[in-house]
């Protein structure tokens, strides 16, 4: 099922400037057609990616987050992707604890010359997110008027979570 046929989902990508962003460029130059759901945020290094960026994206309603950096041992900054790997692997295991489906987050390594691999990664991941469908509304209380709740809390009337 090509993703184009149905409603686009929201996928956020964090890509290292030196490898994967270049790989995505290479894919573009090679006209390797990909689903258009992904929006890429460029960072200098996968080691710059704070796991909280990913959590923030998911909390804000992203349906999927894809992180990609240089292959291990190939980092432009010597060891940034090793830090990234530890952080991202930990995040991946931790996501279910927060109630987020860990399959909505993936990290991978794509070098600047691997345009075809990038096409494959994007297509596979987009396909997976489409199979999972739109992310469930993270907060069941999202319809509540938060300003009113904040006002209540400020007035010492307690909040719905703490009774």
């Amino acid at each position, binding site marked *: 099922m090509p993703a*184009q046929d149905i409603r*686009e989902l*929201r996928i*956020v990508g964090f890509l290292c*400037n*030196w*490898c994967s*962003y*270049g790989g*995505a*460029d290479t*894919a*573009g*130059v090679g*006209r*390797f*057609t*990909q*689903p*258009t759901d992904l*929006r*890429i*945020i*460029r*960072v*200098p*290094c996968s*080691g*710059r*990616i*704070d796991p909280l*960026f990913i959590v*923030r*994206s998911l*909390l*804000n*309603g*992203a349906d999927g987050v894809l992180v990609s950096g*240089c292959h291990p*041992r*190939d*980092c*432009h*900054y*010597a*060891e*940034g992707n090793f*830090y990234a790997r530890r*952080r991202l692997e930990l995040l991946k295991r931790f996501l279910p604890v927060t109630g987020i489906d860990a399959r909505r987050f993936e990290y991978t390594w794509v*070098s*600047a*010359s*691997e345009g075809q691999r990038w*096409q494959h990664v994007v297509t596979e991941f987009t396909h997976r997110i489409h199979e999972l469908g739109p992310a469930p509304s*993270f*907060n069941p209380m*999202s319809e509540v008027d*938060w300003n009113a709740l904040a006002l209540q809390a400020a007035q010492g009337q307690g909040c719905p979570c703490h009774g």
Partner: protein
Amino acid sequence: MRIGVFICHCGSNIAGTVDCPSVAATALTYPDVVFSTDTMYACSEPGQDAIIQAVKDKNLDGVVVASCTPRMHEPTFRRAVERAGLNRYMFEMANIREHVSWIGKIKEQNTVKASELVRMAVEKLRRNRPLVAKRFETVKRVLVIGGGVAGIQAALDCADGGQEVVMVEREQSIGGKMAKLDKTFPTVDCSSCVLGPKMVDIAQHPKITLYTCSEVESVGGYVGNFQVTIRKKATYVDWSKCTGCGLCVEKCPSRKHPDPFNENLCNAPSINIPFPQAIPKKAAINAASCIMLQKGKCGACAKVCPVKCIDFEMKDELVTVDVGAVVVATGYDLFDWHKYPQYGEGRYKDVITSLQYERLLSASGPTGGHIKRPSDGKEPKTVVFVQCVGSRDKSVGRPYCSGFCCMYTAKQAILTKDHVPDSQSYVFYMDIRSPGKGYDEFTRRAMEEYGAQYVRGRVSMIYPKGDKLIVRGADTLAGTQVEVPADLVVLAVGAESAKGAVQLGEKLRVAPDQYGFFVESHPKLKPVETNTAGVFLAGACQGPKDIPASVGQGSAAASKVLGLLSKKELESDPAVSRVNPARCVGCGKCILTCPFGAIKAVADRFGNPKAEVIDTVCQGCGICTVTCPQGAIQLEHFTDNQILAEVNALCPPKIFANFE
């Protein structure tokens, strides 16, 4: 803030699948955007002038250009913005070509995506602030890694340009693959006569320091200020005394290990000078086969040496040099053809590689320039050349064309006829690839003047019959199977990346491609630069190349080095980390994680520990920013707030609007 947005059509590259005017119209609704337009070619001179004019007319203080990848034209537009009087960091780019128009086919979706990418850029730009580069001095010295013809050319050009050069070569002598060749195409010029004088120039040049039998151990630092540690491997000969007289080579009783310079066609003494034109012409001991070093007795060389330069106690030595730039010219290696079962996997002595054949042809080779086949020393009358062994073959993971094999096979066919006038050469080929000045004429000569039989087809098997080797293959033009009884079979083995290239790339932070060749910065526009500033490529380490191309690239790399080092000072990228002392708790985690040692501990005026970034050392990776538990250290131009602004532009926050 007043932001101007420029949507580039890039001819039809973007406008073909993105509705640029509508993207521009949508951009006007974004916060702080006061001006928005679409333009045919933003990077062209009128395009850039229009940006500058708009900055002045509309009093803009930030510019977003939505066009190609920032890896291509970010520097171009930053300069344009600077000409308009803005700080170059008050600029953002949205990549709507490589990431949108070229990969998506549906115009509506592409237009939405482009608009969103522009929105991200606008949101980031709203949080940009002007940054000013710091200046630093450079070390006026170049490291050239690899002493093949590309490295030699780069080193000589740099030295002639007035820079000091340090050349590191893994082998005992410089010269590389070219020193092993007998003749060169398409002039059938003597290879060592062309290369020899250049090698001597390297040895004689007052500005060049040569380290052979040496390898790069580690590389630290950054453009203009690299610190390189070189491991000088023990040669067990004091080269400051050795005169290269060769008495020790004659007397050495250990002659059982194969000679790598002669491609293992013959054996070499344990103490050896690889070839007559070797630079430096000094002897070195192979520890693995030396009787003295292995068994503790012998010492024949030490007894005979007139200057007493043999030192069996010698150890590896580490040398550290500071350099401003690095040229990588590590060359290539030959594909291991033993993977092919159809060529006998090494069972037949008379199946040899083209480089081995080159040694047989060479006057300084093991047979003194007479073609004698390895098995019985007889002169071969029928020689079969097999092309594309380890080139253009997916089944062995080498789908690329090595480029020069067609040409050297034609040369070897010509030389075979010269050496053995009553011989007949057969060439099994896939396609003849001979682009280059005088190249196609040369292959024609091999066929027409020298009577080489070209058979278009692959060889399916080689098997022995009597003292002959039967080469069975297809003739796809005649549509038949052919069998040629050969005295000697020469395999035109393809080029692959040099052994250890990937490991060296890790030290230099230069990425190899999937085959181990180093990746240049841009395939068209930056063929010798790498993504690591100050590191340049020359020769076949970037991809298979013949000699003229390698020499050309060596000179090109040298001109880049000279351009870099001719500047008195370089500007550092101001997008570095910065510590907010009010937030820093002095935990020192950033100091531990920084791969470059760019953060140091200082005390504030109350004696509290604080982190401080050394601007010129920081490379701007941002690992520290993620590590800091306080958010006190922020990578300029990629701060948490800037990246979160992009996230929020894509996924509007549901609960609270502002976490900043």
